[in-house]
């Protein structure tokens, strides 16, 4: 009898002692859905994540230090390797920044060429962002559909500059070469073919009820929070902040888009510009959640198509040159310049300090993803493990740009 009593009392103790322990889990740096070598340390209690600490630097290549030892044009290939999904936009950002320092205006034709290339790059980059986001949520096929179209853009880029990923095409003073003959027709043909395909993406992801369930109302970020964290690009606009450097940026940059008609993709009174063409916002979605960030990207693809079309017309009409690149060892004027451009992932800033020689005294890159990522630990607090890929994926980060 006594033994059974003991046992039952032991059982009681055990029963009252049932509690759960927290566990530290390393997500990354070799994890399929951290978009590269991001490492997130999760503190979890079962499936619930109470704390997320991002650790960076696994792809740090001292790009800024290298920039202090090369001339601006020599550094262009290194900018390619920052946001390797939008190399052209990186080239453009750095070139414009150096041109600002040198007070060098590119010819009209070069300006429109840059718009064509930058917006095509935006399409390509958002396609990857969109496809990879589907992948994060467990839907594999949209990724390949996205790559199918991106491949065609890369083909076009390859034709223009010979490279498919690290272009070094746009450079200080203009571009390294003019667009080959027949390129514009191919580009237009691509746009005509691509436009109806967007509906496919909307059917597979944007309006898919599982997709909506997975990302509507998840990772909600207020406009104040987004601003305070220095978020930019679709992440900022997804929170309802009406800021697009192509319209609001410094004159040196907005000049490039002078005369172009486009509307900033941001929700106003529950509506996005031109959203009658596309499925509306589902009732579950909250402004600033993953769904909105995704949707802004999708609408920007459409916007970029329009911009490319406008740019093609202007480019064909322009009669001057595509802009000769400056000499490789062109002396920079003494001074410093900072310029932010609207890269696909957000505001990419470059800061150049010169002491009068051909090599910048300091080259600094302000990465958009770096700031966008810093919001992770706040957004991922008290979510489920499955939400973490959903949130991090919606920020659409590229580690090459974060770690530089």
């Amino acid at each position: 009898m006594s033994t059974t009593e003991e046992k039952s009392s032991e059982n009681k103790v055990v029963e009252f002692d049932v509690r759960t322990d927290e566990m530290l889990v390393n997500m990354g740096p070799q994890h399929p859905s951290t978009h590269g070598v991001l490492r997130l340390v999760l503190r979890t209690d079962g499936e619930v994540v109470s704390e997320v600490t991002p650790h960076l630097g696994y792809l740090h290549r001292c790009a800024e230090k290298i920039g202090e030892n090369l001339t601006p044009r020599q550094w262009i290939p290194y900018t390619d390797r920052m946001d390797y999904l939008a190399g052209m936009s990186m080239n453009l950002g750095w070139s414009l920044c150096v041109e600002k320092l040198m007070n060098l205006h590119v010819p009209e034709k070069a300006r429109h060429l840059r718009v064509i290339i930058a917006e095509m790059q935006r399409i390509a980059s958002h396609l990857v962002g969109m496809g990879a986001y589907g992948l994060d949520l467990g839907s594999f096929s949209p990724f390949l559909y996205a790559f199918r179209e991106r491949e065609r853009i890369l083909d076009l880029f390859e034709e223009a500059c010979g490279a498919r990923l690290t272009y070094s095409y746009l450079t200080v003073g203009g571009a390294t070469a003019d667009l080959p003959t027949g390129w514009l027709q191919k580009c237009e043909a691509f746009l005509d073919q691509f436009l109806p395909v967007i509906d496919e993406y909307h059917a597979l992801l944007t309006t898919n009820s599982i997709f909506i369930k997975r990302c509507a109302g998840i990772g909600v970020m207020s406009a104040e929070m987004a601003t305070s964290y220095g978020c930019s690009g679709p992440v900022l606009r997804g929170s309802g902040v009406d800021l697009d450097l192509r319209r609001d940026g410094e004159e040196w940059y907005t000049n490039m888009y002078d005369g172009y008609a486009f509307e900033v993709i941001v929700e106003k009174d529950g509506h996005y510009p031109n959203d009658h063409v596309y499925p509306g916002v589902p009732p579950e979605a909250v402004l600033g959640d993953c769904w909105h960030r995704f949707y802004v990207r999708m609408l920007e693809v459409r916007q970029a198509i329009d911009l490319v079309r406008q740019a093609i017309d202007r480019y064909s009409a322009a009669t001057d040159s595509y802009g000769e690149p400056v000499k490789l060892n062109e002396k920079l004027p003494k001074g410093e310049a900072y310029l932010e451009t609207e890269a696909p992932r957000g505001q990419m800033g470059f800061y150049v300090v010169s002491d009068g020689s051909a090599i910048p005294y300091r080259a600094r890159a302000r990465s958009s993803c770096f700031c966008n990522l810093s919001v992770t630990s706040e957004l991922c607090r008290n979510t489920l493990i499955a939400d973490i890929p959903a949130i991090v994926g919606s920020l659409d980060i590229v580690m090459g740009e974060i770690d530089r």
Partner: protein
Amino acid sequence: MGQQDLVSRLQETFGNSIGAVQLESIDPWIEVSADGLPEVCRYLRDQPDLKFDYLSCISGVDYFEPDPKKAVKLDGSPRLEVVYHLWSVAHKTSLVLKVILPRWKDDQEGVLPEVPSVADIWRTADWHEREVYDLSGVHFRGHPDLRRILCPEDWLGHPLRKDYEMPLEYHGIRCR
């Protein structure tokens, strides 16, 4: 508001905290003393007609020339500048603040110069300050979690300093 008005307003409000002003350069900048920085920043962020609510970037720039022959080319004395690029979402205006620091605190080599942190004013400053600390070697006083961000935690030195020398090896890995 013109840059000149803004400068005189800041000078009126903060007096000694505002140092040299350079309005002729490409990006006009205002020098702020290290100690006065948080108040100036808070003022710039909170004033409704300024509303610099967006911190674009913090950069550390080391002005130093280790080679004495070339040192004459250096503009001004050796120093470390921390550059704050501000932006106002509402007014679409930008502003550059500079904090000019000695390369080492009290000229003791190895002791990092200090700047008060602005991480409580702009959340984005958290990571940017960590980066500047990591690469340029500036200690941000009052930062919630000042650790290295890009380099490994046990890395020695601050790579973007001009007198930095790459270590010969790191954990048995040859570096040079």
